[in-house]
């Protein structure tokens, strides 16, 4: 395994894992834009991830696609076997398991251990080398259960029924997880949605997810501002305090993100409500996962690398910083 300018490179298979530039052969762990890029010659991913990439125009006609369901083994040639294990991050997210010469390396991509009704839970795969992210690797990041955060939103809807609750969510994964959890908590009103969230929500629905009724904001006449009062409007995070949100009566800007645990971060985004919704593992889960894999070596790709490395070494594990660049932390 090497760190090259294009990203993490696995020598025996001549393949990159989540490269950020176009390469000949790419193994893609999941569909988020900082992991899945366009222009690769050959792509290996789960069928769901391929579908997401297709929706986002990351795949061209000439791209050679190989879709591998979780657990399906594939011969990459030169004695290398690839299979995917679920990562619990978003729909289709996977850990890439690479076996060669009796050694097993697991590149976990982004992952989480908290329950998520919109994707398959994380699977622990025993291995020799575990390659982990460290987005939330500080002891201050202890993600609360999502139900508690959703309850906060519902409480606010009851207390401030005249305000339009505009929730900024990332279009892929977070949007759908939040909608589903709200439904499970008994929220029955339609969701109003920014156009940028439509296609991926429909994609999730294509995989059997049911989010109940939702409508596009753009399809409701501008004059009908009252429709949104006391309701939930979902949009990309950048829109909560931008021109787009000016069409709503008395908007209440809300951000749903793992960063929202830090108050100042929420204030910087001018969020009036901060929902801690993360699709990454928190501090405790990062360390627990590294331990559970039984790996002799832990390699850390991006995030608060120094803190995780320190904590793992304190526990007697061998940890190394890969210092991958190009992972965008604001995309969480």
């Amino acid at each position: 395994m090497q760190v090259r300018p294009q990203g993490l490179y696995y020598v025996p298979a001549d393949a990159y894992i989540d490269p950020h530039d176009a390469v000949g052969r790419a193994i893609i762990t999941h569909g988020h834009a900082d992991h899945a890029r366009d222009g690769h010659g050959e792509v290996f991913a789960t069928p769901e991830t391929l579908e997401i990439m297709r929706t986002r125009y990351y795949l061209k006609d000439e791209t050679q696609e190989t879709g591998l369901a979780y657990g399906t083994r594939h011969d990459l040639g030169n004695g290398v076997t690839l299979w995917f294990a679920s990562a619990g991050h978003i729909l289709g997210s996977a850990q890439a398991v690479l076996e060669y010469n009796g050694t097993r390396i697991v590149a976990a991509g982004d992952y989480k251990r908290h329950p998520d009704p919109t994707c398959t839970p994380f699977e622990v795969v025993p291995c020799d080398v575990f390659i982990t992210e460290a987005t939330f690797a500080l002891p201050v990041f202890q993600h609360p259960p999502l139900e508690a955060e959703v309850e906060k939103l519902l409480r606010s809807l009851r207390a401030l029924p005249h305000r339009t609750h505009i929730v900024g969510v990332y279009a892929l994964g977070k949007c759908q997880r939040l909608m589903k959890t709200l439904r499970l908590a008994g929220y029955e009103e339609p969701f109003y949605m920014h156009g940028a969230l439509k296609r991926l929500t429909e994609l999730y629905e294509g995989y059997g997810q049911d989010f109940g009724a939702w409508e596009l904001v753009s399809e409701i006449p501008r004059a009908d501002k009252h429709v949104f009062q006391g309701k939930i409007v979902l949009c990309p995070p950048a829109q909560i305090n931008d021109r787009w949100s000016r069409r709503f009566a008395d908007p209440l800007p809300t951000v749903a993100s793992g960063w929202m645990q830090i108050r100042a971060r929420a204030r910087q985004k001018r969020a009036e409500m901060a929902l801690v919704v993360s699709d990454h593992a928190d501090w405790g889960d990062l360390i627990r996962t590294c331990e559970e894999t039984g790996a002799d070596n832990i390699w850390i790709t991006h995030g608060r690398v120094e803190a995780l490395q320190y904590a793992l070494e304190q526990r007697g594990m061998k940890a190394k910083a890969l210092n991958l660049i190009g992972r965008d932390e604001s995309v969480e």
Partner: protein
Amino acid sequence: MERFSDLLDDLYFTNSNLAKEMILTQYLRATPDPDRGWALAAISGTLSFDLFKRNVIKSLMMERMDPVLFDMARDYVGEMSETVALAWPQSPDAVRLNRLPDLHEVIAEFQARDKAGIRDYLINLLDNMSPPQRWALLKLGTRGLRIGMSARTVKQTLAKMKDVEIDIIESVWHGLTPPYTELFAWIDGKADLPDMSDVVTFSPVMLAHPIDEEKDLPRITPQTHIAEWKWDGIRVQVSSTGKETKIFSRKGEDISGSFPDLAQAIDFRGVIDGELLVKPNGEIGSFNDLQQRLNKKKPGKSLMEKLPAHVIAYDIIEQDGVSQRALPLSQRRSALAELVATHENERIDMSEDLTFSDTDDLRNLRKQAAQTGGLIEGVMIKDLSSLYVSGRPKHAWYKWKRDPFLLDAVLMYARRGTGKRSSFYSDYTFGLWNDEGELLPIGKAYFGFTDEELKEIDNWIRRNKTQRFGPVQEVKKELVFEVAFDAAQISKRHKSGFALRFPRIHRIRWDKPANEADRLDALAALLGQ
């Protein structure tokens, strides 16, 4: 404790004052005594004791967490209380509580315990709390709450709950102490307004309207009105029982601590309305001089000798426990003159009645004011029959400020506004050129333009962004504002060396090239340097 923590979270994340008022009202109505009173005290900053010290928190954390990781976390979060609130590791032998104690139980328990007991209790609470609850406790305990709610907004909320003017709250507020049970008994209609006759309290002040030269000037004659200088200090109320004296700012903030020299010199029983100034070398000093005293919570002896506090009395609100509010100004001025004369005191004198016979004289007085280097802001004109009414009654008092200073400055940075202006870039920082051709910021303004102009400026900013520093957006140095301001002061805190008083956008100079904007010398010249 749960509800208190929820309340703080809701207030912390709410931007609009109106929404904050609603949230606080709901809490105060739904929460029993004495919890709501303690919460009110925590929010308005009137708690007079710490529950525990900051170093106790730190030492508890150091026992529980690797110091290297704690430092990394604190650096990332930027603040200790929040880092502890988020990262607190449960004690292995944590004692589970069936319920969290109420706010008043927490306060009573901490106060009743000794040092070791305080530590144990703090650990027990932290073990049983969620991160926002821990944050609330740590901030409450060390009196470090910053939730962006002013004391004024809190009082406004209380006034609205009882459907009375804020003056009524102001009139009792400074005599009350947490947990404010008498206050809530009155708000709930179960008791009369607390009697504050023996307590030194703030009494809401009367304010003036800007004069409308066309409509108001013809009304004014020497028989019906008096004219006084409008001094450029701060408006204060000197309130004394004869034994105890307090000095309040116009908004009711107790600033006695900064001016003990003045407070100790008062020997009458009454409430005086006047202008607070300092008198270096026996002469009235500039606002800049006064600022040095205002910034000091506990002034040293030498500073007080160099810049002794002084009051120019405008009015008398109460004398010997009797309110003078219902008397006409003519009678109040006589009473004030007598009081100042009988209690001869070098720290108080009475504001002079300026002689005038017609409006031309008034115009001349205003011109004179403009030539005092900023010591005098203009002329006050008051109806002799006016009663002392809190707020801004019509046709009673007028202020006629000298013309503002104007400078052409270049827009440098912008921030988004709040409330109605949220998402619009509405707070502007502007600067002047120095000799090296560098722009140095001289001030900030967020009003003086119309809603239409705001949209145009907002649009311009979006098209001319450069760098971003957190919430601050830097722009191309190309847009010129004509900035109006009342005075300029030397300021060490600003890189340009100057600070403006009351700056506002006078005009947007879309036509003017930025390199033709004013230079810092122009500002120095205004200061007579």
